């Protein structure tokens, strides 16, 4: 599967369009505010178009996962090539892009959410040139993470996101923005340095025959790392169920768990969300959180099948804690945004539970939940943003009766809220149901306990709904206006996706199905295979 524009692969386009946009934005004079806005919008829209093209052209029957031949829209160029000097052997790093069923939905999601974020940033006034430049850079980082198949490249993209995020929260955020920003930065960096070490350990454990020169070389190629045959006997990570393999897996896990975020690494999330501007919250919840789980699926599970299987129950247990704990915390929040933030913790728990099930339904449910949560929570944060822009407060108890005041707004809100509750007919239900169905087959009691979360979710969601939208409108909000066209434009598409996926999930499931099956089979099959001998 090849797709080139101007003889440049489409994935490269997808990834580096924002950089292009960033350069344009930087070249534009400060005063040209609308020009800057429109450029960013144009770029992100173009991204969405490309993503949609990918989506239609994507071959549902190819699995990918650990097989380079069935990866689609591949692009491989040699990037770094240090000839052998007899010590490390040659260092060869490839610019290796490609997508399969695991990354395709994420790519689409990223494009979509970025575009929505740009629209929702329209009203930003404070040094918006820098704002959009950073936003676009962030976009590149996110997209890169989802398309990179070379660990080194993956890591570069992974880290590129940190700084823009730091500034976006720190400069355009709320009152406690500095604290939130540095907290996010330190947490994520801590995670990624562990990732770095694991990456290096893998690098030295894996050897392939360089197709070009025919010599044996180490590699950062993720797919090569998944192949047991490639491990050198006696290297750090060779063998099976060895301490080193467990340590490496745990290191990688923590790296990703911080992003997800999995209890107890989640405390950066509420702060970051509350302080971040709406658009950034949307990106955080919509895309960044998914990177954690994506990392587990792309790296954690297939590269360390034995460790993954060994730590399956703890993983599921953490998922359970996330679900219940997040829901309870949400129940107690007075701040609308913080409430949604904790609901994210709870919903991501479902993803964890689903993928921990390590069977088709669970895996599919988890992956679908990743996408659905991305769209739903984005809607929720946008909804909070809309009300915050008007009222400049997020206190849940300060509102009431908005239903009459803002009918259009409330209509959309109902869709989003009930999608979050997991009402059938909306996308949330399918993914949650599959996650639980799958998980139940692996962890009976744990799943039953976790399912309690759906009651709690209904509880805090409806309570919030009642406090904010029902009842009578306080005097002070008499001049609130219903949402305007721009806000409609950013909310409606998400709403439609939520609805469509609720009625016809196959649209997404088809894309993931083959890869999910392959992943599950691969992990289960290789869990018992000792690598490197």
């Amino acid at each position, binding site marked *: 599967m090849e797709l080139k524009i101007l003889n440049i692969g489409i994935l490269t386009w997808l990834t580096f369009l924002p950089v292009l946009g960033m350069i344009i934005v930087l070249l534009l004079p400060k005063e040209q505010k609308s020009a800057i806005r429109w450029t960013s919008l144009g770029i992100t829209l173009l991204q969405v178009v490309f993503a949609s093209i990918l989506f239609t052209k994507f071959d549902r029957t190819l699995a990918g996962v650990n097989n380079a031949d069935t990866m689609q829209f591949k692009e491989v160029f040699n990037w770094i090539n240090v000839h052998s000097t007899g010590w490390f052997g040659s260092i060869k790093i490839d610019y290796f892009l490609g997508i399969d069923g695991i990354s395709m939905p994420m790519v689409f999601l990223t494009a979509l959410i970025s575009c929505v974020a740009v629209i929702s940033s329209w009203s930003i006034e404070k040094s918006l040139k820098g704002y959009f430049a950073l936003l676009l850079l962030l976009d590149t980082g996110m997209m890169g993470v989802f398309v990179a198949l070379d660990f080194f490249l993956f890591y570069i993209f992974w880290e590129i996101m940190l700084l823009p995020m730091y500034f976006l929260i720190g400069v355009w955020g709320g009152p406690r923005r500095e604290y939130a920003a540095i907290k996010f930065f330190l947490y994520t960096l801590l995670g990624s340095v562990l990732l770095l070490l694991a990456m290096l350990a893998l690098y030295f454990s894996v050897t392939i025959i360089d197709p070009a020169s025919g010599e044996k070389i180490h590699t950062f190629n993720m797919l090569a790392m998944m192949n047991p045959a490639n491990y050198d006997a006696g290297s750090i990570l060779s063998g099976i169920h060895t301490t080193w393999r467990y340590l490496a897996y745990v290191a990688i896990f923590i790296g990703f768990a911080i992003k997800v975020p999995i209890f107890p690494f989640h405390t950066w999330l509420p702060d970051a969300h509350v302080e971040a501007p709406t658009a950034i919250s949307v990106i955080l919840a919509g895309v960044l959180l998914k990177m954690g789980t994506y990392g587990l699926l792309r790296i954690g599970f297939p590269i360390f099948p034995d460790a993954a299987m060994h730590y399956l129950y703890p993983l599921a247990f953490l998922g359970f804690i996330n679900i219940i704990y997040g829901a309870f915390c949400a129940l107690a929040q007075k701040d609308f945004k913080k409430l949604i933030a904790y609901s994210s913790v709870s919903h991501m728990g479902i993803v964890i539970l689903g993928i921990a099930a390590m069977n088709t339904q669970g895996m599919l449910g988890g992956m679908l939940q990743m996408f659905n949560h991305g769209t739903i929570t984005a809607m929720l944060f946008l909804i909070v943003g809309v009300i915050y822009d008007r009222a400049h407060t997020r206190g849940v108890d300060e509102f009431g009766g908005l239903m009459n005041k803002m009918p259009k707004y409330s209509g959309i809100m109902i869709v989003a809220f009930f999608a979050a509750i997991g009402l059938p007919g909306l996308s949330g239900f399918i993914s949650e149901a599959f996650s639980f169905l799958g998980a139940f087959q692996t962890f009976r009691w744990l799943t039953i306990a976790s399912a309690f979360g759906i009651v709690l979710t*209904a509880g805090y969601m409806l309570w919030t709904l009642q406090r904010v939208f029902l009842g009578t409108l306080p005097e002070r909000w008499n001049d609130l206006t219903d949402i305007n066209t721009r806000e409609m434009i950013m909310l409606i598409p998400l709403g439609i996706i939520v609805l469509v996926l609720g009625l016809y999930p196959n649209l997404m499931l088809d894309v993931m199905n083959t890869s999910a*099956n392959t992943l599950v089979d691969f992990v289960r099959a290789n869990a018992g295979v000792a690598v490197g001998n």
Partner: protein
Amino acid sequence: MIPELKIALAILLLPLASFVLLIFFGKRFMDKAGHIGAAFLGLDLILALFTFGSRMGTEGKWDFTFTWIDFHTMVNNVPLKIDIGMMVDNLTAVMLVVVTLISFLVHLFSLAYMKGDIRYSRYYANLGIFTFSMLGIVLTNNYLLMYVFWELVGLSSYLLIGHWYEKKSASDASKKAFIVNRVGDLGFFIGIMIVWMQFSTLTFDGIFGAIGTGVIPFDSNTWLTAAGLLIFCGAVGKSAQFPLHVWLPDAMEGPTPVSALIHAATMVAAGVYLVARTFPMLTADALMVIAYTGAITAFIAASIAIVQNDIKKILAYSTVSQLGYMVMGLGVGAYSAGVMHLVTHAAFKAGLFLASGSVIHAMHNALHHQHDHHTDAQDVRNMGGLKSKMPFTFWTMLIFTLAISGVPLTSGFLSKDEILAGTLAFSHFTGHSIIPIIGFLVAGLTAFYMFRMLILTFMGEHQDKQRYDHVHESPFVMTVPLMVLAALSFFFFFSLNPISASHGWFFEKMTYPTVVVPAAAAATPTEEFVEEVHHQHTMAMVLSVGVSGLGILLAFVTYFWKKISADAFEKTLKPLHTFLYNKWYFDELYDATAVAAMMGIAKVLSWFDGAIVDGIVNGAGWLAKLVSNISSKFDSYVVDGAVNFIAYFAGLLGLSLRKVQTGKVQTYMILAIIGLMVLMAMYM
């Protein structure tokens, strides 16, 4: 897909169409919205009747199944896929008629009742989505879709209860209804998970077929029982069975027609329908639990209904009690009777609600006339003597009351004593004689409190003369539905034999499903049971007529001839009265336990999250600062002392990272030498 099913599909989709139309363009139609909705439902009803007719002619059932999601993988050599679809058998056909008929009548009734409501079109839209989901429940042939529509009726009921959401009480009630139902649905969902895990299919046929061949969850009858009971949890929630019955009375915050449609006739009956559908896989133990749940519910609700004064509250509790009856009926194994009671009850209970609605409507207008906004228009004590003012309403109401009290010649009589006969049979086989006792007791209570309500409302005379003059009979759109339903409350619609339904068409068509439970765990085989029921029938009939007659008599003695003073009774039995009046304090109990616990945990956890989890992490970050601050004090104290090696040595050991940078170059040299010595010391 055969044409009959195409029609069924049309039946399903018509209300949805009405919903879509009204939700988006409702504002355009102004007050025509109602007529549009009604029109759609009218058409729906016709189709339903047609389907009913053609269905009754044939055998077996119409089924259409297709693969919704194919996972493209095998689980123990069976391709893993989710099949869904729709089916129409006799039960479905009957339910179709019931739902569409009552929904249609309610649409009509509301034309007048909801006139000039602020959200008139929204109201009709919601009625549409409700009808759609309800029809979905009865048309589906698998638990997945069942669950889907199950949740959707929950949603529409949430929307309709909260129709007047400006009222705190209304929005509270709607929230309560949804969440309490969620609790039940949780069980339902877990049940589904068990079933799915074991059989990798969710269609009724697939599951029952598998069980029939001896495959049962985790190879244990206990798990089979568990699965059944968990699915039953869904019913407990929807059909307001003990202990989840608390939401239904509050749900009366919704408009009265809604109460009639959702909280009396159809949605709450969905639970019973679910049990009926699941009947084949229910083990003896499961049935036992179900029977007791029903009995307890029936009794508790009846006891509460006696002392209520709000006309709708009385009806609400009678509904709960009657639902308990049906569940009990199914629990004891009287399948057809239970289902039949569902249908008959749907008719007369809808009638009762609509009639009460008509009364409330009249009272409202009256009160409105004299600008009285304090008097409660729903309190039976403010009524009385309305008979002559509202003849239609009264007479229809009387018929419904007779029906629910199980007086002969009514539909209620037929279904009720079939159930009672069933309970007798049940006790005969199992020895659980408490069940029939409760059954008859409740029958008596029902007759009593229903007539109490009737008498207080329509007979005697009205206290407020002036208000009385302003009371008028409701318009035709409201009374016509009443008459229709009244007609349906007579026996001949269900069986030509006025004293026994067992040979009527209903029992003919509504045959027992074949039970697939392994013999070891199964309840009494159907044949024996039916046989026994026949023996018990006469006995049951006599007794039931007796107790209900007694109840009615007592009601008249107390409230009409006033031979016995109700107040005196109240006085003497004060504690009991308050206990009942406060609904056995269930709400208080739950608030004090479940709700309080939830919020408590939530508060604690979120504090924990902020203070501890976060604190620990931040703490780690600042550890360096801490250490060096502490040690710096110590150090500055020591450094001020004489310049001696040990002191510096100690200072260095004390991790005084920063304070050693004293600016005194000789200090540095000393430290360097110490370092040197330490390094050397390591090798000696």
